[in-house]
């Protein structure tokens, strides 16, 4: 039971990092990205590439970050032409195109089978390897949170919020919205890819099924439920959602329900949670604070 708790907490930390990445885009800059999972995938496949090519595992990190940067720039470039809602649809489509391409490509990505046998972090510390791993993921989460907080409370953070709420006013004051979008996509893309790299070396397996679009919506549910536009909130949302999802099988066992209850219940938690919060508490558990910039 303790090992399971460590496992769930580890995954929750990585999802927390992803929620922070999405929050930077959607929460603070108004970039409604439904293709976040592809940026995460750049990190996982960066790790897979290093493993497949026989490189040092750490070489997968710059590879993943470089792929994420390219994809982030492509997403940002699309945003020049498309308004917010159409951009959201375009990002979802691109993420799906990439996933399907990976599924049908064999040489580099291993196709639908994916790539397994990636080295596990701290594997030589078994059976106590889970704790240092969790500590590392928690440290990454804290670092990501710190970076995000610094950004949103700075003068650049003001620019992001102005772009989110009043793009016309921002343009009239001389803000370069394309540059803001590009910068935000690059930073949040790097954060998501970093989470992906760690995730790949945690599961020791990378496959296209990890990049299904429901994963993006799971991250969205964490952001909405936790509190969009609040970095504390989205981390709390990630932890709450991850633990809720992980403990569904225990409820199934306790109530003696059939096995397919687990998958159905998880869908209900994500979809129902999203719907309930959007209807009754759209600002989430921890609403965004007005006036949080670092002046004076």
């Amino acid at each position: 039971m303790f090992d399971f708790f460590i496992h769930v907490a580890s995954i929750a930390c990585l999802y927390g990092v992803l929620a922070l990445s999405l929050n930077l885009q959607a929460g603070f800059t108004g970039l409604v990205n439904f293709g976040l999972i592809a940026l995460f995938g750049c990190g996982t496949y960066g790790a897979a590439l290093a493993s497949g090519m026989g490189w040092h595992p750490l070489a997968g990190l710059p590879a993943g970050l470089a792929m994420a940067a390219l994809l982030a720039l492509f997403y940002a470039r699309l945003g020049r032409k498309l308004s917010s809602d159409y951009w959201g649809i375009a990002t979802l489509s691109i993420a799906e195109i990439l996933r399907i391409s990976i599924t049908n490509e064999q040489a580099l990505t291993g196709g639908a089978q994916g790539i397994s046998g990636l080295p596990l972090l701290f594997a030589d510390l078994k059976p106590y390897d889970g704790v240092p791993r969790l500590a590392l993921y928690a440290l990454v989460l804290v670092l990501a949170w710190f970076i995000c907080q610094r950004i949103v409370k700075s003068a650049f953070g003001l620019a992001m919020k102005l772009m989110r709420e009043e793009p016309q006013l921002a343009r009239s004051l001389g803000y370069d919205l394309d540059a803001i979008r590009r910068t935000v996509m690059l930073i949040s893309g790097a954060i998501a890819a970093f989470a992906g790299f760690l995730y790949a070396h945690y599961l020791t397996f990378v496959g296209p099924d990890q990049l299904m679009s429901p994963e993006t919506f799971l991250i969205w549910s964490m952001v909405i439920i936790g509190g969009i536009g609040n970095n504390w909130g989205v981390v709390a949302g990630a932890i709450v959602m991850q633990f809720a999802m992980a403990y569904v099988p225990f409820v199934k066992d306790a109530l003696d329900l059939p096995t397919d209850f687990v998958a159905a219940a998880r869908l209900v938690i994500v979809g129902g949670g999203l719907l309930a919060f959007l209807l009754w508490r759209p600002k989430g558990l921890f609403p965004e604070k007005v006036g949080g910039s670092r002046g004076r």
Partner: protein
Amino acid sequence: MAAKLLDIKGVSKSFGAHRVLDAVDFSIAPGEIVGLLGPNGSGKSTALNVISGFLPADGGSIRLADADITNASPQRATAHGLVRTFQLPSMPHKMTVREVLQAGASSKAGLGSIFSAFRFDEELETLLEAFRLTHVADLPAAALSGGQNKLLSVATALRSKPKLLCLDEPTAGVHPNLRADMVTILKRYRDAGVAIRVVEHDMLFIRDLCSRCVVLDRGEIIADCAPHELEDNPRVVEAYLGKAVEKGKTAL
């Protein structure tokens, strides 16, 4: 005549078959305040949108401080010193008045700004005070009344240190006492070298503020004169001021 800050030549704009601006020419010198008048639909706001890069021109040229800004993006026009406000300004819900005002001075802030805390400096406090917004400075900007909204948009535009400030009906919904204050503040900026181009219907405000007026009617300039000369111009009387002038009832 002093060197031209803004020089517009032959600017035209049509929406389909409807010609909104017809080969419009005019210029503004540094430190000059020019009123742009005309009946509704005469092309005042379209002229402002074209000059500030929010709408492309169909023809003609626009030069600002010796740079060609014809069909430039709003960002480029602003980089050359042109800042505008909107007729119906809309303010953010999740930013305070103070933050919006600060944003006026932060358009060049890149990611490097995360390493140093910005300052709500004395100029910001002075602007809040001058526009009587100090007591609402920490409220969400969207919570302001319509009049306060206008004041904040003018203050924010001033905070971005423009060479040419284009105001679109800045006094609509603003209390008369504050209009007088706004005249004083804008003249102070004019004295510091800022040129101002103001679209407005309030003739008292125009008379107090502007040294020159340009009157548009159906996309054409029908007058370019001092405010007190307007009522002597029969075309202006007919198109804009109305018969009240003839009967001596005008505020001019």
